[in-house]
């Protein structure tokens, strides 16, 4: 069986398992929908009170917000296995079982726990995108759709890369460190506002170290047809999502080093 088919099979099995507890799955999905939706209230209330922020309007910020939440929802569903690697696999010794199977470990982890509830965040992000379309009058030309899909793919790769790094770290710490939430949930939080609002050092971090701006800010500018107040040329948004894939490749590089370092806990 090919890798893609295997991943599909694993995801299907995981979803099937969760569907056996429909009430729980529904409640957790609803919780995700509401829990991620409260940030919408903050954004809306700030615009309601202040009108605009440095020339950005609510509809435009809604585009950043929707894109970034859709990306993270997909990556979070795929990367759950890396997130819980320390507590569920390394500490229990269950990781040895994965190593014995003649299939890529990363693939097995991606299919391990594909959470239905992440659909709550995806739905919320989608609704905000629809709102942004109406509010900011976005014309979804084929080019704009292409940029959006490319940005989404790059963003999923970037967030997955962050989760892979979190998993890699747990080869050394043997527990899942919550500090990684700074980059996952905190990354969503940071990327849902225009990059131009932040201090310069923070903009550099978000562009060159954890390239969240490359998968959200620059492509969204290209979709809006808005010139960058910071002066980046217009083509940047069409190429910058590549940075997400580069980040993922680098994360898997680190992952292989971690894997070589792994010694079973022996239980």
């Amino acid at each position, binding site marked *: 069986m090919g890798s893609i088919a295997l991943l599909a099979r694993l995801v299907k099995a995981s979803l099937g398992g969760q569907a056996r507890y429909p009430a729980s799955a529904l409640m*957790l999905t609803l919780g995700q929908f*509401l829990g991620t939706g409260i940030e919408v209230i903050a954004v809306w*209330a700030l615009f309601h*009170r*202040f009108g605009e922020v440095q020339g950005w309007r609510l509809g435009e910020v809604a585009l950043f917000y929707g894109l970034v939440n859709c990306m993270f929802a997909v990556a979070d569903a795929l990367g759950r296995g890396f997130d819980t690697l320390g507590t569920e696999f390394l500490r229990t010794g269950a990781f040895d079982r994965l190593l014995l199977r003649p299939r890529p470990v990363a693939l097995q982890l991606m299919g391990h726990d594909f959470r239905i509830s992440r659909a709550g965040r995806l739905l919320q992000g989608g609704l905000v995108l629809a709102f942004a379309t109406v509010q900011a009058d976005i014309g979804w030309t084929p080019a704009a759709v292409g940029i959006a899909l490319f940005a989404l793919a790059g963003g999923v790769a970037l967030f997955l890369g962050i989760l892979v790094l979190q998993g890699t770290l747990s080869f050394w710490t043997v527990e899942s460190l919550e500090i990684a939430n700074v980059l996952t949930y905190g990354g969503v939080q940071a990327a849902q506002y225009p990059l131009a609002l932040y201090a310069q050092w*923070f903009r550099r971090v978000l562009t060159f170290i954890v390239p969240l701006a490359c998968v959200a800010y620059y492509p969204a500018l290209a979709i809006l047809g808005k010139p960058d107040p910071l002066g980046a040329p217009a083509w940047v948004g069409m190429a910058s999502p590549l940075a997400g894939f580069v980040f993922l490749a680098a994360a898997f590089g680190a992952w292989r080093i971690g894997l070589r370092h792994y010694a079973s806990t022996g239980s």
Partner: protein
Amino acid sequence: MTPMPVRELVRPYVAAFASRFLQMLQYRTAALAGFGTQCWWGGIKVMVLAAFYGGASMAGTPMSLAQAITYSWLSQGLLVLVPWLGDPEVAQAVRTGAVAYDRLRPVDAYALWFVRSAGWIAARALPRVALMAVFAAVALPLAGLGDWAWQPPASLAAAIAFLASAVLALLLSTAMVMLLNIATVAALNERGINALAGPVVIVFSGNLLPLVLLPDAWQAALLMQPFAGVVDIPARLYFGLMSGPHALAGLGLQCFWIAVLVALGHAAMDRTMRRLEVQGG
């Protein structure tokens, strides 16, 4: 039965509070990790608020930028006061059946869980708020970011009112956590309850945004609802936005909600415990 002296009566509760408090203080890595996350979070909030304030005319804003920034650090420092999770120890006791032991102890079950949960919250809140104060009130100005710093309270009276209000906030938060605990006992599982409680509490406590920045039309209702007493009322007292008789009214409102929620929790607990079927062994 001869009446016991008060000291004897409260002794088990004080002991339960102290042991849980000291136990939770041991988790230093967790406190540091939480602190790191909260600095990042607070930093983003501060930059976003500064950007919004930067463009707008100050006339329509009920809170200055410096106050809004201090509010962000304060609410990040007091994050664990926000009652979005039931006490995990209670959830575990329900799952393992250890809740049966609590039923056998010759003390009031509600009061025992209340003081334990209060110890759990207080021991996580104190180190975090102290670290946050050092970071935002001392380190940031030293690093040349004085504009982003945590400002001192408006006056000595404001500081005293804030401290009193913070203690009430702890009691209020514990009363809310108790309701979550009891719901956990009734449902035998905490995940769904925690997932639904979180969003409501985060918005209405003022943790998400200072309540005064929400639309003006909602202000009266926002101030009266019980969650305001967890973060927003202490913060208003800190800034002197409520002073004199208004400060007393704020503290009174907190006391009112504590009394209501404790009474509600007590009744709900009696009811739930009568129906409880212990599953573990």
